Structure formats: structure tokens, C-alpha cells
């Protein structure tokens, strides 16, 4: 097994640039709502400010709160190295979809444990909600992995995007699976129909409730990992479901074109999220959970269509 150096460079780019992309998303939302909004570099300033502060840990909490944030950040950065960004090839390499899925499960379980650990009421509430939503999202993710396997006969995400980049006209089932992946993305990243990432109102928060007791550098790690997580999910969406134009050879022109097309697709996805977040309202917890059976039905239909034909 060989690890291409270029994979490493493009993954480093994700880790470094993800706060910028979140800044762009926040700017887009501000413009859609009709106000000026903060600078697109604001997430960097926030992280810098948080990293300068010391860490204060409740004396009721155990070792989970001490080591949790750094494990979360480590697991998220690991996932960034398992995905193609704007270059892919058929070489044998790491990038199994199941490793990605379980790395995200590590992130999820440590966030839930941190919420429970500080023994505040908000933390327990947020943890139970998060566990409820991810219980629904997990089978959906398995359905989509099955779909990708049947479509390309491969579990490696680099190979999946290589094989799918040759297809020009996608079939019906591909679009259906794409729509259900978008809903899965919104659920896993605590985005609007399920959770509002901006609010600290006690009735609505889920992800924020769990990290309410963190401060200083711990909070910076968790925030950075949530930024990277959103960008990684978007890149999985782009490279598995709409990978046309991705660079498949290591020539300068192909790489440049791949990078340009990738940036355009990413900005388009961010604009889509911004539009969803400004037009939809956050649904109630159990009403939001009703979206999942619909999405699972879509997944069943997609798998049936691709398995039969």
C-alpha cells in the first residue's frame, strides 16, 4: 500500500482552510438575510482568541472532559486524510468508507460523553437529543454506503470518485441517493431542520448544549473539529455523488482545472446550505425525526433500483 504525497497536501489544505469556508458560509447567510455580517476571516480570529485563553474545568468532571476535546479534534483531522479533494487515482491506498463512518462515530460518542460528564442539566438534554438523532442517521448512512458499493463495486472512496467521474449522465437512483445524503449531512452536522447551530436558546440547542461547559482551548478544538466535519461531509457529497471534473492525472493543467471545478462546486454547496438555513425553520425534535423514515424510504428505493437493473 502506497500513500501518495499529493493526497497529503490536499488534505492539509482542508484542515487549514475549513474555518475560511465556514466564514464564507456565515457571510452568505448574512447577505441573504440582508445585513453586512462579519468578515470571512472571523472564525480564525475566534479560534485565536479561544486558544489564548486558559482552560477551566469543573471540579465535578472526570478525565473525559480533560481528554475529550483533543480526541475529537484528532478523529476529525484523521477523517480529512481519508478523502480525495481535487485529485484521485486508482492506486491502492487508505480511504475505506467504514473507517470514515466510525471515525465520525468516535467524534459523536465523545461529544455525548462530554455533555454527560459535566453533570449539568443542559448537557444531559443535549446528549440525549444528539444520540436520538444519530440513532436515526446511522442506518441511513449504511444504506448510502451500500448504494455506493453496489454502484461501483468498491468501498474505497478514492476509487468511488474515480469510477463515478467517468459517468456523464447519472441515473435516477443516483439522484435519489444524493438527496438522501444531503439530508443525512444536515442531520449529522446539526444544521437547520434538525438543530440550529447559532442559537444558545435552551429549548432548541443540541450540539451547543453538550459543549456548554467547555472553555478556552478545549472549546477551540471542538469548534475547529465541527468546522472540519462539515467540510469533510461536503467533500464526500461532492466527490462521491457529483465528481465530474476531478483531476485523475498528476499534470498541472488537470490539477488546476480540478481545483477550480472543486472550488465552484464547494461554493455552490455552501450556498445551498445557506439558502436552506435562511428559508426553513427549525422543526420540533420529533417532527424533525419524521424526516428520517422518508429518507430511509428513499434509500430503499435507490438500492432497489440499482440492484435490480
Amino acid at each position, binding site marked *: 500500500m502506497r500513500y501518495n504525497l499529493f493526497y497529503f497536501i490536499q488534505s492539509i489544505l482542508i484542515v487549514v482552510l475549513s474555518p475560511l469556508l465556514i466564514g464564507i458560509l456565515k457571510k452568505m447567510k448574512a447577505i441573504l438575510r440582508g445585513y453586512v455580517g462579519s468578515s470571512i476571516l472571523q472564525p480564525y480570529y475566534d479560534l485565536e482568541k479561544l486558544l489564548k485563553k486558559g482552560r477551566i474545568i469543573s471540579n465535578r468532571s472526570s478525565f473525559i472532559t480533560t481528554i475529550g476535546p483533543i480526541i475529537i479534534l484528532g478523529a476529525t483531522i484523521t477523517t480529512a486524510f481519508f478523502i480525495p479533494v481535487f485529485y484521485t487515482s486508482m492506486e491502492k491506498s487508505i480511504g475505506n468508507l467504514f473507517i470514515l463512518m466510525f471515525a465520525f462515530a468516535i467524534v459523536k460518542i465523545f461529544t455525548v460523553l462530554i455533555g454527560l460528564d459535566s453533570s449539568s442539566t443542559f448537557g444531559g438534554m443535549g446528549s440525549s437529543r444528539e444520540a436520538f438523532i444519530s440513532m436515526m442517521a446511522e442506518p441511513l448512512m449504511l444504506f448510502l454506503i451500500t448504494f455506493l458499493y453496489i454502484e461501483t463495486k468498491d468501498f474505497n472512496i478514492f476509487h468511488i470518485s474515480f469510477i463515478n467521474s467517468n459517468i456523464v*449522465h*447519472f*441515473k*435516477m437512483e443516483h*439522484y*435519489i441517493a444524493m*438527496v438522501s445524503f444531503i439530508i443525512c449531512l444536515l442531520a449529522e452536522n446539526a444544521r437547520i431542520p434538525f438543530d440550529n447551530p447559532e442559537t444558545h436558546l435552551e429549548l432548541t440547542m443540541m450540539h451547543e448544549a453538550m459543549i456548554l461547559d467547555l472553555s478556552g482551548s478545549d472549546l477551540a478544538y471542538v469548534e475547529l473539529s465541527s468546522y472540519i466535519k462539515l467540510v469533510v461531509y461536503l467533500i464526500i457529497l461532492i466527490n462521491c455523488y457529483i465528481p465530474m471534473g476531478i483531476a485523475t492525472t498528476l499534470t498541472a493543467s488537470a490539477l488546476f482545472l480540478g481545483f477550480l471545478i472543486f472550488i465552484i462546486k464547494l461554493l455552490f454547496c455552501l450556498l445551498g446550505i445557506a439558502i436552506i438555513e435562511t428559508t426553513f425553520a427549525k422543526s420540533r425534535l420529533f417532527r424533525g425525526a*419524521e424526516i428520517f*423514515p*422518508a429518507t*430511509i*424510504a*428513499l434509500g*430503499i*428505493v435507490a438500492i*432497489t*433500483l440499482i440492484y*435490480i*437493473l
Partner: protein
Amino acid sequence: MIEALLTIILISSIYMSGVRRIKLLTGGFVFQSAAIGLIALKLGYDTGEVHYYVLALLTIITKVIIMPLIINKSVKKLKINREMELMVNAFNSYILTGTGIMIAFGLLNKSHNNFIKTGIALFIIGVLLMVARKKAITQMLGFLIFENGIVLFEISLTKMSFVIEAGIVFEGLMLALIMGIMIFHINKTFDSINTDSFENLKE
């Protein structure tokens, strides 16, 4: 192009199978009918046959413009916005439609015609809405979805006489009109459009 439009039809219909608010149901129906109209337009452009154009025009006029107007008018008159008590709840209806469509596609595995498959999916969802909902207006929407499935079914047949096409479309329109009036009378007689109250005998 056609595949994307069929996807819109399938996704909107699966979404409609569990939604409670009648406004959202109507919106999904409009989306679905517009997609069917566009499919007919595209097929007409590809094959150059006139009857596809006529079908597209009829579908868009009746189902995208007139029927939503009738439905919205009767909803406003009845002051009923949502279906509160479902016989099969939203959770189970989504799973039921998913399994039903899976079985139907499994039985149709010899056919490579996506129109027939989507049509069958619409039949299943329409029948579910007719059987598992209590309000008469939702049942009417279920029938209209069923009827959209018939239109897709006959798009897939290459030769269909124009009279039958027009008949199908106008039948749907008449149904919407008659049901609009009938639902109003049901409401007047029973003080609700819940079809359960038909069991009570009245002088």
C-alpha cells in the same frame, strides 16, 4: 434530464406520503404535475409528435393552475389546515411506501422502463393516502396522485389515441371540481370532513 424529472416526481411523492399539512401536500402535487408536464414536453421535442405537446399543455393548465386553486379555495372555506389524527402515522406510512415500492420494483425487474416504475410508485402512494387518511380532502389528493400515475403510465406507451389522453386529464379536473363541492356539503351536514362521521345516521 428525464431521469432528473422522474427523480423529482418520486421524491415529491414519497415526501407527500407522510406530510400532514394540506398546503404542503398541494405544493408537492403541483411540483409533481409540473415535472410530468415537462417530461411530456421533452418527449414531444425528442420525437416530434404533436400529442405529447397537447398532453403537456393540458397537464400544466389543469394540474398546475386550476386544481391547486380549487383545493386552496375549499381549504380556505373549510378552515382546515392539517390532518390531525392519522390512521397510519407518518413514521409507518413512510416505511410502508418504501417497502411497497421495493416490492413493486422487484416484481417489475424485467422492465427497463422507468416511466412504468414511477407510475407504479405513484399508484402505491395514492392508494395509501386514500386508505390511511381520514379527511376527505386528503383522500381526494390521494386520488389525484393516483391519476398522475396513470398519466405517467400512458406516457410510456408509444401509441395512445388523443381522445383517451384528453379523457384522463378532464376526468381528473371534473373529479377535483365535484369533490370540492361535495366536501363543502359534507362539511355542512356533519360539521367536519372526517369520513368516519359517515357512519352516524342522520335524518
